[in-house]
Structures are given as C-alpha cells and as structure tokens.
C-alpha cells in the first residue's frame, strides 16, 4: 500500500535526472523496498535512454556546406529579384506606352466623330421621307404659317389642348427649322385631314416626349394665283333690237309707274 503513495514521486524523481536527490521519506522507502528500488532504476534508465537519444538527434553536426549553400542561394535570390524588378519596370513601361497610344487614338476618334456630326448638322439635308404637316395651300383655303400652325377650330379638341399643341408645335418648329434647315413642305395635307393629323401629332408627342418629327418648319409660301389663259372670244355680232310690240309698251309703262310708287 505504501508503494502506491510513492509512485508519483518516484516517477518525478526518475524523470528529473540523476543529479536530483530524493527527499528523506522517499529515500528511506527506496532503502527498504526492493521492488520500488528496481522500478525506480528501470524508470531512470528509461529516461536516460530517452534523453540520450533526443540529445544525439538534436545535436547533430552541421554540414560544412550548409552556410556556403545558403549564401549561394542568397545570391541567386538577389539576382532573381533584380531580374523581376527589371522585367516589372519594362512591363510597366510597355503598359504605359500602350495606354498613352490607346488614349490618343480614342481622343482622335472622338474628335473626328464630333466634327463629322457638326458638319452634318450645319449642312441642309435633303428630305428623306414623307414627314409633314403643312396643308395644301389653295387660293381659297386659309393659309397655315409656321408661327401659327394648325390653329383650326375643331369642336372635338379641347381648347386647352389645342392651345398647348399650338405653342409646342411653334416652339418645335422653330427649333427644328434651325437645326435641320428643312424648309420645304413634304406632305400636302388636305383641309379635312388636318384635324386628324393634329390629333396624331399630339398623341405621338405625348408618347415619345420629344420634339415631333412630324412637324417641320416651313416658311409660309404664297401659292401663285391660278393662271388661266385668256378666253379667246370671237367678234361679237351686235344687232339692234326689234321695235316693241304694243303689249310690251304697256308693260314698260306699268313697270315705270310701279317703280315710282
């Protein structure tokens, strides 16, 4: 029973090494108990073997080529780093050149595009398709001008809508005429279709929220009066009237009296 009490102390003593001396109680027990003494010796030899093996593996000799090899690898590392830096610098230089050239090319393309657009806008373009609004001008029909377009009395269109449409159309026409330079009428709208066209233009403008391309600025043009060739009439054969009959004379007198009354 007493051996169990000393077991942990024996283990600690054996693992502590040869130099460590046991305390008095443990020393007295080891003197009296042969089994504990033999177990202690075995433990101590086991720990000694462990320590010697660990020391022999941990304190192995450094190879003589170790430090020179490390220095050679340092030099390789430095050369590799220098090569990497130079390649990086060269690569960044090439990249910078490419960026400069690409940006210059893009700027030139943008300028060319802008100049082309301006040139196209300044030149009056020929009319491409049937687009517009001015009604057919007849000598009899009221004339529609660019400043007062489509002011047609229509009982089916509300007055506010008609007014707004008139203002918008005038503004649009002025802007559009300045921008495009179109001055020729493109569609001749008969007077009975004028209101329908106005409705369509209003609807189209609301839907697209942009200036109506249907409304084109036009100068009010005066249509020349219809030139009709003179009627060629042959020489008139004028003959005196025959003398009145007595009944006809009475009738004339009666008429004169009646007029006097």
């Amino acid at each position, binding site marked *: 029973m007493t051996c169990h009490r000393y077991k942990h102390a024996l283990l*600690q003593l054996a693992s502590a090494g040869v130099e460590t001396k046991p305390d008095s109680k443990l020393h007295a027990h080891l003197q009296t108990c042969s089994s504990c003494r033999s177990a202690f010796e075995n433990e101590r030899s*086991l720990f000694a073997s462990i320590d010697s093996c660990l*020391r022999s593996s941990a304190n*192995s000799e450094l190879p003589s080529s170790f430090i020179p*090899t490390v*220095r050679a690898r*340092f030099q390789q590392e430095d050369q590799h780093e220098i090569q990497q830096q130079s390649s990086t610098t060269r690569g960044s230089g090439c990249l910078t050149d490419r960026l400069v050239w690409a940006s210059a090319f893009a700027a030139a393309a943008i300028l060319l595009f802008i100049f082309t657009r301006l040139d196209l806008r300044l030149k009056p373009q020929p009319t491409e398709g049937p687009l517009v609004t001015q009604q057919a001008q007849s000598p009899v029909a009221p004339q529609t001008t660019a400043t007062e377009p489509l002011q047609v009395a229509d009982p089916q269109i509300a007055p506010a809508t008609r007014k707004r449409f008139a203002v918008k159309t005038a503004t649009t026409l002025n802007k559009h005429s300045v921008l495009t330079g179109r001055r020729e009428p493109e569609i001749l709208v008969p007077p009975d279709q004028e209101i329908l066209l106005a409705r369509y233009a209003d609807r189209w403008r609301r839907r697209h929220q942009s200036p109506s391309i249907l409304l084109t600025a036009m100068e009010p043009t005066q249509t020349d009066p219809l030139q009709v060739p003179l009627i060629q009439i042959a020489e008139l054969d004028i003959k005196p009237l025959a003398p009145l009959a007595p009944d006809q004379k009475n009738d004339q007198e009666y008429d004169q009296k009646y007029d006097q009354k």
Partner: protein
Amino acid sequence: MQELVLIQPGHTAETDLQRDATEGALRREFEERLAECGPLAFRVARGVLRNTADAEDVAQDAILRAYRRFDKLRDRARFKAWLVRITFRLALDRAKSSNRRQHRETSWAQPERKPAPPTAEDLAAANQFRSRLDRAVDELPEKQRLVLLLSAMEGHSLEEVAALLNIPIGTVKSRLFFARKQLAEKLR
C-alpha cells in the same frame, strides 16, 4: 566633362542610393545572424525530420524565407525565435508530406502487411528503441515537441527555451514533464 546618369522616371539617384545602402545594411545584419542561427535552424529541422539531407533543405528554405521578410521584422531581437518557428513549421509540413508520400508508395506494394508486434529482443536493440522513440515523439503535441527538442539541444537551458519561445519557464517545465512522461509510457 559632364557626367550623365540614366534615372527612371519617378526616382532619383539619391533615393536609389539610400535604398541600396539600406538593403546592404540589412544583408550584412542578416549574415551576422545567420552564422549564429543557421545551426539552430538545421538542428530543429533535423530533430523533426531525422534526416540530414531533408533537414538541410528545410533549414535553407526557412532561412531564405526569413531573409526575404527580414526588413518587415519589427523586433530584431526576436529573430532567433522567429527563425525557429519558421523552421519548425516547415519541417512539420515536410514530414507530413513525406509520410503521405511514403504511405502512398508502399501501400500498393504491401497492402495487407502489418508491423509485427515488438518482442523482447527487438526492444533490446538500440535501433528499435530509437525507432519507437521517434514514433512516440511524432505523436506528441506540437508545443510539447518543440520544447522537448529545444531543451535537448546543447547550450539551451530551460530559461533560454522560455525566452526563445516567449513563454513562462513554468510552462516550459510542465510541457517538458508531460512530454517525457508520455514518451516513457509509450516506451515502457
């Protein structure tokens, strides 16, 4: 005669010279430390790998890794501990990969073969004892293993190990005690 120097854009000759001087000073300082810490790195790797060639390779890798990042080390007094940790981690990684490779290469050749149980004669043999000790050390926790390895080296007292690992000396003692106890239990 006028002397012309080619300078990269964004750099000046003075900054380049200063940088070169700084790098030279760092290189000299590292080489001084290398003579002191190179053997330590090799021994740590040798203690883990138990193979001289592998240990040399791993120690060189660790030293090169430390050399690349030496300028980022804030406390230069901790260089030895830093290098020991790098070497220990690299050696553990190498040991694991070599174990996996060895297992992969031998498993197909001897799939069903198991090691025979040790006999008294085997235990008596020193090589067998060493191999068993190595296996027992491999099974130790990493912290205990590093303490056991460093304390087994010559010239490393427990106080020095504690300073090297930046842990209290009581922790070093307890880790060493439990490591040796486990080894003894496995070798008994």
